[in-house]
């Protein structure tokens, strides 16, 4: 198992290096205007001097090498364009925690609500719980998010008696953005879990469990649930990633000082160092998520062994 983990982590690191290198090289193909805030007014000599100072005239492999060396020292360079000469790490340190916190909270909320919803829908398939759940899922999936986000904000803030905008110090003001972010995932988890549970409940081992005399609830929770949850596991990492980076709209709606939209902004600003840092961050979160997903699968499902094949038929 340890060997398997080491192998997986090693591979993940290689994946990260490749992603970073590709993004780094792509950024080098962008026009050089982005490196200077006042490019128009600069003379050629000034531009050359500026490029030299930033080390941009060195051969690309050298630049890449230097980037990785600095990375190991925790230095991601300084921002050009987004906020001039402020270290990238400092900018991210302001913004990342709040987004990650919000993402984690919303994932927790969506698991706590989505999984029981899906289970109940499968348990009482065709009954009113199932019908209401389906209505909810269809609503969330079919209606543009902007519509119910706005309603949520409007009526939610009235109901809770809080200001429209986010204030990190007031716990009440976390509720609405976290729930807004969770809504999509709740529907998503409930939909897939219901589907997998219904699939499982038609399988032979469930028939055998019934023929054994096990009660409906025992069958549902002790036999079906775990089997249905295994394929669910693979969705968790990617939905976490999407929640962390995909909350542009909600963050702007509530003025949350997170990193939603930051990547788009810095690409527009041609702020290479910022782009690299953010891509590195997302790629890391993504790779870790996939790794965790795989580890969870192996823990839950004995049929998936760690790498080497043993036993079996």
């Amino acid at each position, binding site marked *: 198992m340890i060997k398997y983990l080491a192998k997986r982590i090693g591979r993940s690191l290689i994946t990260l290096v490749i992603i970073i290198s590709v993004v780094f090289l792509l950024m080098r193909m962008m026009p050089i205007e982005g490196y200077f805030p006042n490019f128009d007014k600069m003379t050629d000599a000034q531009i050359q001097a500026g490029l030299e100072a930033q080390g941009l005239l060195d051969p690309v492999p050298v630049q890449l090498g230097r980037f990785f060396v600095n990375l190991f020292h925790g230095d991601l360079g300084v921002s050009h364009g987004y906020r001039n000469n402020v270290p990238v790490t400092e900018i991210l340190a302001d913004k990342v925690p709040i987004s990650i916190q919000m993402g984690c909270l919303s994932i927790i909320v969506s698991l706590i609500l989505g999984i029981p919803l899906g289970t109940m829908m499968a348990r009482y398939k065709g009954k009113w719980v199932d019908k209401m759940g389906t209505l909810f899922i269809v609503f969330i999936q079919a209606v543009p998010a902007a519509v119910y986000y706005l309603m949520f904000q409007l009526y939610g803030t009235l109901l809770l008696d809080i200001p429209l905008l986010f204030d990190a110090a007031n716990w009440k003001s976390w509720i609405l953005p976290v729930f807004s972010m969770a809504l999509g995932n709740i529907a998503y988890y409930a939909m897939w879990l219901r589907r997998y549970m219904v699939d499982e409940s038609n*399988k*032979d*081992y469930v*028939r*055998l*469990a*019934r*023929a*054994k*005399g*096990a*009660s*409906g609830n025992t069958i549902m929770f*002790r*036999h079906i649930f*775990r*089997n249905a949850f*295994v394929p669910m596991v693979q969705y968790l990492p990617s939905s976490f990633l999407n929640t962390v980076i995909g909350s542009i709209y909600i963050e702007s709606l509530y003025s949350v000082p997170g990193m939603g939209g930051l990547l788009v902004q810095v690409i527009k600003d041609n702020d290479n160092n910022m782009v690299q840092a953010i891509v590195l961050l997302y790629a890391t979160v993504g790779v870790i998520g996939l790794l965790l997903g795989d580890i969870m699968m192996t823990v*839950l*499902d*004995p*049929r998936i062994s760690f790498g080497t094949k043993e*036993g*079996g*038929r």
Partner: protein
Amino acid sequence: MTREVILSVQDLDVKFRLRGKVLHAIRGISLDIYKGESLAIVGESGSGKSVFTKTFMGLLDNNGFIPAGHIMYDGKDLAKITAEKEWQKIRGGEIAMIMQDPMTSLNPLKTVGEQIAEAIRLHQPEVKGKEAIREKVISYLNDVGIPDPERRYKQYAHEFSGGMRQRVVIAIALACNPKILICDEPTTALDVTIQAQIINLLKKLKEKYSLTIVFITHDLGVVANIADRVAVMYCGDIIEVGMSEEVFYDPKHPYTWALLSSLPQLGERGEDLFTIKGTPPSLYKEIKGDAFAPRNPRALKIDYMLQPPYFEVTPTHKAKTWLLDPRAPKVEPPAAIRNLKDIEGVYGK
């Protein structure tokens, strides 16, 4: 011969609602099952073999229902039970079932030990404590012939071969401590060599646990090997029932003749095997007369008009065919099956 009836089915009807239509799957079956016997129910696919036995356990699909008839067991009419709670006591505890496909009938995420232990906890409350249950599970694994049960106990279904999985399924059924064991084509999904092992195992366990076994199959070789008595089903009805020898050596119903004529052992090299022409009638429509008449080249006029009652051949052998009526013309069974006794590999050889 006086034998105690353990389960008695009387005029049982089963229907299914399917897309607004009603399918009449079981058409008035009456059958007594005797304690300690092994009864084989044979018939082609769709004849209602599985549906018939599922009614004993309340395992019909949701769209199935029993409009008429009784299933008397232990003084209760199982056909009238609706409460899930009551069924849970009967399922496993009184009547257990082994299913066709051992590859899919075990939960892939639980160790086989846990799955057998679950049955013990449900139906043998007198076995208390983790260690006692574990020992019991291991003794069942031993009984079904799984080597090294101490180690196998902790393994998952995917670590077992098909034959071994079927043994585990049998162990689960035994752990429920049933009186009747229904085996729904338990060997169909297995290799031929494994089939024989499983059949022999079931024979052995039947003695050890004094079980009554109901065997559903369309493999007549299996029937000959295990069954005391055979019931032949066609179109949701039992058209002939008798002791194995009687049905094999002295079949009376034209459908039984046709079924036996289809035995591959009777085929001649270079010639096509015998097949029964046509298809069974639709169960959506009311069947008039003998259900087999349209496929029976020797059908009588009355076969199309009136459903035959049972005619008794011997006290243990009866068949639903007008040919047994004293007024009927003499029709001989096909030559091919007259000497089944002498053909190797068909019965008891």
